[in-house]
């Protein structure tokens, strides 16, 4: 598992804290299903190769 999630104590802690930062107060019965979804996406992220950062993915490109 990558980056921020690996830095968190665990995925559950990350989920609750990140939700709180966004003003989402998760109910107790919501936490596990949301964690499962974050975990699912994390597995997808692991399938993403690191490609060179050309700083242009979403930046404007102007032709002189």
């Amino acid at each position: 598992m990558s980056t921020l999630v690996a830095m968190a104590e665990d995925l559950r802690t990350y989920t609750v804290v990140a939700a709180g930062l966004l003003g989402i107060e998760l109910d107790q019965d919501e936490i596990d299903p949301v964690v499962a979804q974050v975990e699912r996406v994390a597995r997808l992220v692991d399938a993403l190769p690191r490609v060179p950062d050309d700083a242009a993915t979403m930046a404007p490109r102007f032709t002189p």
Partner: protein
Amino acid sequence: MTVPASKGSDDGLGGSVGACEIAREVRAGRLSAVDVATAALARAEACQPQVNAFTTVTAERALEAARAVDRVVDEGGDPGPLAGVPFAVKDLFDLAGVPTRAGSMVLAERDAPGRDAEVIRRLGAAGAVVIGALNMDEFAFGFTTENTHYGPVRNPRDLRCSAGGSSGGSAAAVAGGVVPFTLGTDTNGSIRVPSSWCGVFGLKPTYGSISREGMQLFSDSLDHVGVMARTAEDLGAVFGVVADSPLTGAPLPPRPRVGVLGGWFVDKAGPAARAAVDRVAEAMSATRDVELPLAGAAHAAASVITYAEAGELHLDRIRNDRHRLDPVVRHRLVAGALLPADWYIRAQRVRARWVEQLTSAFEHYDLLLAPATPFVAQPIGTETVTIDGEDLPARPATGWLTQPLTPTGVPIGVAPIAGLDGAGPLPLGVQVVAPAHHERWVLDALARLEDAGVASSPVTEIGGTES
């Protein structure tokens, strides 16, 4: 000419007659638009208890619009290229005076919009007659239209099965012969999956080629507006009306260079999907196995982008009103809002490389082929599908073959193929992929497959035979 009111009937201009044919008859004064609309409304009503394709039927509005078309014809005016053609739209396009639900109870309680979405205004100006809004997955977040609030859409080819999603109502209304065309949207396959499962022609055009004004978004950088119909000719006629630019450019070459996508697109396809592609590949003399190494990563990127953009879009809603959402959709949206920026940016960078990879393939090929779904329509409620001895999670696996292609934004048509070994009455679609802004090539290819008898979309008499 009489217009039968029974569903799927074909003794006149009934449910199996195409949009272009209806328009020709209405424009020539041989058929009344009011009669056509009346018959379509009767079919919608007859079909609804079994298929559940509609969330709203706008009968009064439809008859008023049809009367206006007939008046223009009577007065010798031009009623438009789609004169009197009935159609319906996924319930995420604004219809004046009707709440736009997007498959959700939350949105149903908002004030109704004061005017139509841009695409509906364009179709109305062309003489087409909207008869209602169509069922879908909540906020378009799904592949099966098993909507908790409005019920599942059942597949007219086999009522035990899902119609696919998220534009499930749009595909079912066409396959069931209620209307000759519908509008849908496609973010990860939401036109292509239900087209495949219901056996209709579908067109997801180039990203940005059809206005999204007056439409509920799902994932901004992936959302496409598109069309479903029973013929390639009808797809082209509707696209010509709703697109920002008309169909232009040279037609598909007589002997196009056609490749079959390999790797991911073969590994994730079941026997029926491979057989469907084989049939199209043979008809188009296609070269086998065009390998694009980033396809699997593109699938992951599309998923990550969807989660993140949908979570951001619905952030206020999930802060304040999420408990009235379908629990599965709610949990996905909350998770999407929490994703680290690093993940989203990584996905967008992979997407940029993937676009380059696919674009470079078009230096060698005019068209590329791939199955639209790994398997045929599954019974409603199916959790697991076994393909080649492997158990797959049914709902996410349904989009495995459409999702990688969406982030490229290129036009993709779906050719419905029936009569596949072991599939019974259920069809399966093949994606025909072209370079950006080459919708004409896609439509030409679909028409050739239709002419050759390879692809077809007969109307299903609900629970009965085809016509």
